[in-house]
């Protein structure tokens, strides 16, 4: 019984380590070795305490009601032993943790800067070359990357499990993340600071690709060769899908199906037909006309959409019956 519990526990602990996501960078490998050290030390500590506990409980279980128990009040050497040894172990863990943390925070001068902007419920990325994309961004492999991040509304947090790094994104201030991906592939990005309804769908993808493919992606115009409606659909998927459905069903905001040319009742009692100007105004200045029964929670997209993205979006919404 005693052996089973302990091996189950140790087995589980060791097995847990294999569940860490893929190691996307050198720092990630260091974090994992630190994690292995912490796991092994903890497993030993658990075996000592829980094993000792079970052993003592079984060996000294009550045989008869008038068992005589030893009157041991304390033992200074033992007290010193099990306070000094944990202290030393904790200091090692602290030092190693500090070393790894410092490596996550040294922003080398020649790193490629990517600007990330978090807002209620999607991520926007901008490059110095003027290229911008939402929900997905490309970075070249084996180049130090520096993510400069801010938020437009509430606290968010940029979490790259593959790189073992995370940093809160604070409105009114810039925070940064540094990593050097050494393995190509697609890495999942999560928002890990609670930010409201769609906090769980505020996801993004980071694609680590070769230098050539990265430069080629940087040049290509995302909407080249796409029809206006297809451009609109791409923008919808990146920025609007989080709150609006393509059918008529309400999500956070109203569904788009059949919206075009329909009569819209507003909170202040007035009403209007939903033509192109109404749709354009609702995107750029959503607070102007709020449909009855909906919270005025939509942020403004002023200055975030290029002219053809905006007209593409309007065409896409018009196309939804």
């Amino acid at each position, binding site marked *: 019984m005693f052996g089973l519990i302990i091996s189950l526990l140790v087995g589980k602990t060791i097995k847990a380590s294999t569940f860490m996501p893929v190691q996307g960078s050198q720092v990630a490998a260091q974090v994992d070795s630190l994690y292995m050290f912490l796991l092994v030390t903890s497993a030993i500590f658990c075996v000592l305490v829980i094993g000792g506990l079970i052993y003592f409980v079984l060996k000294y279980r009550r045989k008869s009601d008038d068992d005589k128990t030893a009157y041991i009040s304390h033992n200074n050497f033992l007290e010193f032993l099990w306070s000094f040894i944990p202290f030393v172990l904790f200091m090692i863990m602290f030092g190693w943790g500090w070393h790894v943390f410092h490596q996550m925070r040294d922003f080398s001068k020649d790193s490629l*800067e990517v*600007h990330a902007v978090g807002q209620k419920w999607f991520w926007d990325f*901008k490059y*110095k070359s003027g290229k911008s994309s939402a929900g997905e961004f490309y970075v070249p492999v084996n180049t130090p990357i520096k993510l*400069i991040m801010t938020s437009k509304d509430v606290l968010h947090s940029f979490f790259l499990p593959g790189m073992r790094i995370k940093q809160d994104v604070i409105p009114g201030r*810039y*925070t*940064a993340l540094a990593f050097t991906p050494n393995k190509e592939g697609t890495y999942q990005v999560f928002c890990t600071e609670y930010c409201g309804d769609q906090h769980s769908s505020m996801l993004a993808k980071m694609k680590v690709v070769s230098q050539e493919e990265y430069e080629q992606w940087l040049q290509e115009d995302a909407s080249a060769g796409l029809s206006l409606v297809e451009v609109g659909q791409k923008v919808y998927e990146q920025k609007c899908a989080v709150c609006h459905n393509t059918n008529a069903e309400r999500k956070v905001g109203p569904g788009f199906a059949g919206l075009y040319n329909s009569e819209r009742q507003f909170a202040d009692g007035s009403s209007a037909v939903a033509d192109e100007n109404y749709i354009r105004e609702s995107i750029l200045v959503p607070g102007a006309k709020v449909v009855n029964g909906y919270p005025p929670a939509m942020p403004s997209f002023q200055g975030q959409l290029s002219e053809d993205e905006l007209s593409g979006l309007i065409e896409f919404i018009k196309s939804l019956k």
Partner: protein
Amino acid sequence: MSHGHHIIPMKVLIKTIVALVILTGVTVVAALDVVTATIGSHAINTLIAILIASVKAYLVAAYFMGLKYDSRTHTLVLISSVGFVILLYLFSAIDIFSRTPIESTL
């Protein structure tokens, strides 16, 4: 621990109030524009004002509240509560004043 009901003598009370009023005068004078201008730095003026206030606070606590004649545990309670307020300021200040500013380079 001094037991029993201790009566704070009248003389002590009068001396305390006189000292307090004088100190209030001093702190007001110390904050006059002509004086602050000569001292110059804003931080030192704040420090002087807090020091004078602390002396006044000591007088009120020791004589009006009778801490001088009371058991030391009461003084310990006062000091520890002020200590933890300073602790909150200290660690928050360590964070706020050692943040490396990050700027956007767009």
